[in-house]
């Protein structure tokens, strides 16, 4: 597939680092469209963001689990002004804190809507919508 010069130069979404020591394993799993989170087998704490240590106890035993991918919007904003080279081309767009049913609250964008100004609500039920990239996928959400 040929790619035009304009497309080559188009700024892209900033992507996470796959080798970041606390969160890299999460991102590596997104290649398979798995949203992983940790729960401590010792104290039950559900971790977010992922870390190498448990914040609930000092002898933690963190185990990876996979979310079913359903949740609700805790809060959101529609960004109208951004100076970032990629995001300035995307305004207006919705950023949201999403509470997954399993507990983790993560920051993401809402996709799969006609108009972010009218189609996003606190308490709205959403599901994961993966945006594909070369070595990983980005966990966006869309109305469920």
């Amino acid at each position, binding site marked *: 597939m040929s790619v035009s010069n304009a497309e080559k130069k188009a700024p892209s*979404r*900033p*992507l*996470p*680092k796959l080798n*970041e*020591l*606390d*969160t890299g394993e*999460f*991102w590596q799993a997104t290649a398979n469209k798995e949203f992983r989170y940790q729960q401590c087998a010792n104290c039950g704490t*559900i971790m*977010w*963001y*992922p*870390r190498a240590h448990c914040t609930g106890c000092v002898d933690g035993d963190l185990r990876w689990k996979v979310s079913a991918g359903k949740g609700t919007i*805790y*809060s*959101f*904003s*529609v*960004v*109208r*002004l*951004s*100076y*970032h080279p*990629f*995001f300035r081309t*995307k305004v207006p*767009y919705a*950023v*949201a*804190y999403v*509470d997954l049913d399993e*507990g*983790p*609250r*993560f*920051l*993401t*964008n809402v996709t799969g809507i006609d108009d972010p*100004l009218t189609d996003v609500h*606190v*308490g709205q039920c959403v599901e994961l919508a993966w945006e594909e990239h070369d070595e990983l996928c*980005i966990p966006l959400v869309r109305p469920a």
Partner: protein
Amino acid sequence: MAGQSRDAAIVGIHEYPSRDVEGRVNALQIKAASAAKALADAGLTWSDVDAIYDAGEGGTMSGLMISEYFGIKPTVMDTTGVGGSSYEFHAAHALRAIREGKAKVALLTYGSTAHSNAMAIGAGGRGGGISPGDNMETFAGQTLIANYAMVAQRHMYQYGTTSEQLAEISTATRFHAMRNPEAVQAMTDLDFVDIQETTIEDVVNSRMIADPLHLLECCMVSDGGGAVVIASADVAADCKKSPVWILGTGEATKYPKNGADITTSAGAQSAPIAFAEAGVSPAEMDIAMIYDSFSITVLALLEDLGFCAKGEGGAWVEGGRLRFDRPNDGPALNTDGGGLSSNHPGMRGIFLLLEATRQLRGESTSQVADARLAIAHGNGGMLGARHSAASVILGRD
């Protein structure tokens, strides 16, 4: 106020007047110029300083760098850097160092050329850091403003707060700014349109930046800086100006947590500690210098500091009660014009101490008659995510 300790006082202040230095001076020069004037305000000089407090403009060895730059030889050094709240932390730490007898004269300084550098504090990207938190969030393009906006959105959802109520914060601070010549000059230099008092309608009809926050609910991006000198009681007794005592302090942090309520900030933890140490209550405050990065910051903090119950801030601020000319309605808010209408070079906390001191000295351009007690509450970081907060209760003789 039995048992209230008066161990350390603000004895010297200076606010750097320009908000647009046009590249003529840098941040370190602003710090030094402000420090010299603040020391002179107290009747002290460089060699009197034995404790230095610095939020890191000079880099990772800022405490050493700034000591050499100022030409001082401190025996107490503190480089706590927690954004806009750094200076309230510094005041708290200076009180302790002086109370312990480890220091007699503490110097706090701030300088920034955020405007000249065209540093996009609010609407820029979140930087390319690789902290684990950043690595989970940068992809979403959340601007700083959008993070605060999510607090406002949730506050509206939980408590029915309205944009008109949030706008009260903006109109009160602009009302004060129009009485402060330096704030008026700042708005002029930064090319504000309509440099005048604002109405609720002006605010809610201004351009939306990140729903539900409008342009006039967002702080400016300016240059600026200042300095504060804090001294022991014996030194304060010989200073030129009346002492403004540090009566109590509290510090706290908050960060994202599954299931947490983002409408409540770290201030809910730091303020009770400060009020308890000072032996006073929120209702006794004449002045509330509350970090106004955005309208929602003040609304949430008024609740967290105990001026009203959580969720009732919207109704509480209605009717212009935060203005300096309504002394019977509770504290006057940000009587210098605040970050919304006077200055915001990135870390505004020092200006909260400066204006609180001016009020307790009787030197404000929106002076509350016989002001005796003030709170300066700094919030640094992101209100809806990770932030630090410190509360400082100040009083005069």
